[in-house]
């Protein structure tokens, strides 16, 4: 019997495709019976030809089932290596280079996000116009998304917040300060 080339087109005398029987075997081995297989399973339970072929297929599939049942050992340092590689890429791709008179420094995205969040909180405490921000840092600069309080004139509040942040970042980073964008994405119900 050569299943490799033509076997999937083979049909038993009762009309059952051999491929469907093999699916039944594999699905049972995977312990995840497929919905479509129940009709076939009912047929097989009353068909000697199918049962014979099913046994052959099951014994052929046994090495796969055993292989699938075995635990694969994960290299012990893999998680740490993944975290380390990720940290390196993060640092390279999301820190902001700030050039100052004495040279340049890299400010991490995390530090920048914290700084901007704090500045938004200070602004919100002073004006009661906006809520908690979502802060994103990319190569293009800082994007702040906030919800404005109900009744606040959104363009004015957004512009005031933007100017507050620009002033604060200028103070920290001088001419190298990253660009700031403020988006009002939601309204806080009163």
């Amino acid at each position, binding site marked *: 019997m050569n299943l490799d080339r033509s076997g999937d087109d083979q049909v038993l005398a009762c009309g059952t495709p051999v491929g469907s029987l093999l*699916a039944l075997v*594999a699905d049972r081995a995977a312990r995840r019976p497929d919905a479509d297989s129940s009709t076939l399973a009912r047929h097989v339970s009353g068909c000697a030809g199918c049962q014979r072929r099913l046994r052959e297929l099951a014994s052929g599939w046994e*090495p*796969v089932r055993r292989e699938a049942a075995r635990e694969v050992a994960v*290299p012990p340092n893999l998680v740490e290596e993944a975290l380390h*590689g990720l940290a390196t890429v993060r640092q390279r791709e999301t820190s902001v280079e700030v050039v100052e008179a004495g040279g340049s420094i890299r400010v991490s995205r995390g530090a920048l996000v914290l700084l901007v969040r704090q500045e938004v909180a200070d602004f919100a405490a002073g004006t009661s116009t906006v809520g908690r921000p979502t802060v994103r840092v990319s190569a293009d600069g800082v994007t702040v998304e906030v919800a404005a309080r109900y009744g606040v004139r959104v363009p004015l509040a957004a512009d005031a917040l933007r100017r507050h942040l620009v002033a604060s970042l200028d103070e920290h980073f001088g001419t190298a300060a990253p660009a700031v964008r403020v988006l009002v994405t939601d309204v806080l119900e009163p």
Partner: protein
Amino acid sequence: MERLVGHGDRELVEAAVGGADGAFDELVRRHTPRLYRVALRIVGDRADAEDVVQDAWISAWRALPRYRGDAEPSTWLYRVVTNAALGRLRRRRRMPEQPMTDAAAAILDTMPAPGGGPEAGVLRQERGDQVQRAIATLDSSQRVPLVLREFEGLDYEEIAAILGVGVPALRARLHRARVVLLGRLREVQ
């Protein structure tokens, strides 16, 4: 730092989208073993599988801004690692042919102690070796769904979502993959 262990994957991904690196790191801790298993079954080589896992996490992190929540995090991660593994296979094909040296050893050196004495162990090792080698001969369009189904035990709908194909097309691929795999195993027995 906030304890993230009790959070669901979806919460972690959403926090990571919002810039919480710690949440993404927790996903890495949680899912690296699974990603490695899939990568190893697909690329068949331990060192390559480790590289695939690394590539996958970096791709996932870069893709975070585009994560829209329409896929389950696990589906998304399977898709990312599968793509990384396929990328590795494509690059390897362009390089001089490398034998699948490490594959069986990687998988087999973790086998539980055989119950039937040393001979049974050797026999089992050879069989496992044969399965892995037979899988390595499958075309990647057959190998990937086979790994996700037979080794990861995912259901058809999830595999179809990971591969971006319909369920009938997936069935056809899996069907072909199983028949070919069984044929290859018979050739060596």
